[in-house]
């Protein structure tokens, strides 16, 4: 469904084309927009960069609902706002032959920031969480030909309080959209439980499937092979709503790690009652053992050293609508420069990136799409008099849903070592619940959260690691010398804004001094700047916040990468390559 869509822009909800989703609505005057892409980069909406403060700073006074008072519902705060732009997207399509007579869904990989969906005039659903895939069942309303799918995208919603990441503030359908057809027996969910015994010799595998409700009669078979095609596990079960395989024991298991990202090949084959193949699910997975031993993070019995970077998805022409080629290029840069870990700051990345990191042996910190620093960090000071989610029960479900999205989509990736609760969202009961959620559903990974550093009352309930940002080597030593409870990592360090990466030795030297010091993630991988045509010279030049008359802005503060925005390395990269090369295992 990528490509041209019909598009109408409204600068606020009051001016939006009400009813545009009706099949016979006159959309002849609509513009054409490319999906995936940002509305701002098509010059409908103003480009705006801002860091911590909310994007309406200086223009609208807002407090999140229920935070200062239970009576404050915040109704209309965004839907009646005069500065909340709306994109109306529509596309006519015929269902391709192979998709017909099946259950049909549509998957939106990323829509910022709130979307309503209609098909053929029928309301289908609503979604938030800009960086998670939203899938909708279209079956009740789909036709073989002449369908009209319509999406109304609001730039801001209550989700805006939860998505205050330090980045250009875009909107629109910025990741791919596709239709899927599902056969009468369909694997809705695959959960691979792969563990390794303490002696690191034997793997255990259990696989749980969720099929569609009331599946037809049939079977699901599973095979697991190694990279030589040798069968490791094999089983077949009757198709029921939940199917369980295993426990299988894998002797002399080959473990997955950075230097040897070895994966086994799992394949599911779904057959109907006559034995005809309905669906095949291939999935490569790994065995690895990640645990705390004497308060030190150990991977497959080795102390973990994180030579990491924080990576925003960025392309200077396309913003966050990056391409596969961008991802391939980034992994090549990682390899060339001894970068072994990535934090998906500060939201889930495109789905293929996780598989690519599995293949490349990159350790991942998979971060939940949550950042609320505008609500509690004001001009650099901790000021949590109003903050979300805090311990506000009305915000609980919306926040926990983001963790569930992150876990369920990415749970089978060996590359993920950490579930990160989000970035800079202070700490309260809701984050403690999120931590508990990840611990409950996954015993093979650690939880990570830096913000509890700002509210030590939750130290026992949030984060398996002591994580800080931009901490000095001296203060890290002080922590490690003082009978620490948790291993230390820098979730952000070596802030590489412009020409400012130096003194890395002071951090690297801690590796030999303190077993509980385990490295970190440089801030950050790539400058966020946008190519525009220079109005004076006609040359393509890189622009940053404030260069679009956008206010309030944080200007060049998004230029902190090891790479320039156009993916050329900064001179400091050789320093990173040198130091990260010393502990690259």
């Amino acid at each position, binding site marked *: 469904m990528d490509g041209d869509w019909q598009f109408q822009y409204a600068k606020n909800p009051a001016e939006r084309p009400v009813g545009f989703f009706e099949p016979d609505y006159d959309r002849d005057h609509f513009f054409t927009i490319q999906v995936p892409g940002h509305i701002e980069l098509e010059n409908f909406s103003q480009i705006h960069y801002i860091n911590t403060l909310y994007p309406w*700073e*200086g223009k609208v*006074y807002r407090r999140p609902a229920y935070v200062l008072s239970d009576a404050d519902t915040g109704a209309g705060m965004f839907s009646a706002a005069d500065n909340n732009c709306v994109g109306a997207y529509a596309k006519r399509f015929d269902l391709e032959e192979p998709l017909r007579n099946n259950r049909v869904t549509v998957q939106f990989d990323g829509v910022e920031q709130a979307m309503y969906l209609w098909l053929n005039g029928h309301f289908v659903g609503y979604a938030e969480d800009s960086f998670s895939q939203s899938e909708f069942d279209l079956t009740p309303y789909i036709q073989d030909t002449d369908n009209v799918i319509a999406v109304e995208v609001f730039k801001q919603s209550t989700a805006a309080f939860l998505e205050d990441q330090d980045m250009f503030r875009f909107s629109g359908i910025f990741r791919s959209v596709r239709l899927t057809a599902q056969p009468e027996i369909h694997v809705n969910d695959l959960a691979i439980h792969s563990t390794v015994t303490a002696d690191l010799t034997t793997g255990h595998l259990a696989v749980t499937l969720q099929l569609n409700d009331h599946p037809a009669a049939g079977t699901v078979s599973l095979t697991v092979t190694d990279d030589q095609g040798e069968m490791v596990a094999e089983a077949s079960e009757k198709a029921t709503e939940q199917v369980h395989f295993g426990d299988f024991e894998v002797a002399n298991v080959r473990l997955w790690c950075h230097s040897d990202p070895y994966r086994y090949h799992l394949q599911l084959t779904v057959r109907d009652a006559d034995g005809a193949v309905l669906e095949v699910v291939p999935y490569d997975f790994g065995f690895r053992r990640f645990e705390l031993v004497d308060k030190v993070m150990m991977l497959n019995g080795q102390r973990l050293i994180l030579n990491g970077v924080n990576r925003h998805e960025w392309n200077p022409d396309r913003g966050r609508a990056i391409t596969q080629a961008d991802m391939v290029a980034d992994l090549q840069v990682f390899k060339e420069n001894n970068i072994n870990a990535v934090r998906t700051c500060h939201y889930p990345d495109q789905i293929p990136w996780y598989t690519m990191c599995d293949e490349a042996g990159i350790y991942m910190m998979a971060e939940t799409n949550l950042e609320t620093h505008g609500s509690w960090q004001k001009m650099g000071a901790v000021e949590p008099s*109003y903050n979300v989610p805090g311990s506000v029960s009305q915000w609980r479900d919306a926040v926990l849903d983001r963790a569930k999205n992150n876990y369920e989509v990415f749970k089978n990736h060996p590359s993920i070592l950490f579930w990160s609760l989000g970035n800079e969202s202070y700490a309260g009961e809701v984050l403690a619940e999120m931590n508990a959620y990840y611990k409950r559903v996954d015993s093979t990974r650690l939880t990570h959260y830096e913000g509890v550093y700002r509210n030590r009352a939750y130290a026992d309930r949030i984060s398996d690691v002591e994580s800080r940002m931009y901490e000095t080597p001296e203060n890290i030593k002080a922590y490690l010398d003082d009978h620490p409870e948790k291993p230390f990592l820098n979730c952000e360090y070596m802030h590489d804004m412009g020409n400012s990466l130096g003194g890395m030795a002071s951090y690297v030297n801690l590796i030999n001094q303190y077993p509980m010091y385990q490295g970190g993630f440089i801030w950050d991988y790539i400058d966020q700047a946008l190519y525009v045509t220079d109005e004076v010279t006609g040359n393509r030049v890189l622009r940053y916040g404030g260069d679009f008359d956008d206010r309030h802005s944080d200007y060049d503060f998004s230029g902190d990468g090891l790479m320039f925005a156009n993916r050329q390395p900064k001179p400091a990269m050789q320093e990173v390559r040198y130091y990260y090369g010393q502990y690259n295992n």
Partner: protein
Amino acid sequence: MANTTTNLRVIFGDGTLGVAGPACHYIFSYERGGLESLVQHGKEWLYRTPMPTFWRATTDNDRGNGFSQDSAMWLGADLFSHCVAVAINVDDQDLGWPIAPETNRFSNHEWAEKVQIAFTYQTTTVPKTNVTVTYQVFNDGHLGVTVHYDGQPGLPELPALGLRFIMPTPAVGFDYTGLSGETYPDRMAGAVAGTYHVVGLPVTPYLRPQENGMHMATEAVTVTRHTTLNNTDVDATDFSLSVVQTTAPFAFSCLPYTAEQLEAADHIEELPAVRRTVLGVYGAVRGVGGIDSWGADVEPAYHISAEVDHEFSFEIRG
């Protein structure tokens, strides 16, 4: 019920004070330490926060008599002075510097008749001193500006004292009521008072780029642009902003460059491509002298003492 006499909506932000008035919207940034956004009729007029300006690009006379060496710390102050205090007054009520949690009592519907915000800048000179820039937004949306310099014994003479506005795109020209030609305190006699139109942003092509384009004794200047940096703005219609005298005439220059950009160039062709409008509004301007260019000073009456207070005011209208 709407009160028809209170036109200004005040937005108590977490890092800014927003003030929306008739056809205008101002954002005063606590982080940037000044007026960050000045929007009139939907057009942004600021590229960077207006800052006190002290430097002028060294004239040949300054070079000859060593003035720039003697006053070099004002170059640093021009570049690096910074905001140290903010004070807000709404409808004659002093609010100090209200930020959360104090601002949690406000709403999105706060109205006022007048809003005053003062930014105090500390110079990087030795010894230090302060300059306070006070903005007052009036009920009709116009902006009053007062710049107060605190005299400080021991500081070298000032090259200039003004407030520098850097606008996002080049002006197509400006109109002013004042004196003809390029004037300085010790070079005003030949000028004719009147209203003048200047096309573009001409830089006087002195063989070596230096201070130029000053206009003394001005009642009003109107700068006109036709482009913005807003990526959604395709309207190329001219739009204007005026600076108008209040208590006394002011001096100004309207150039595409800052003093530092001029200072760095040895030839006109070394100046960068024209991208911005740099409007300096001055309360005090040093004379240019002229007896010789190998040592003679500007006459004493045209020096600016840094040891005494200076203050000037003007207003901005869309």
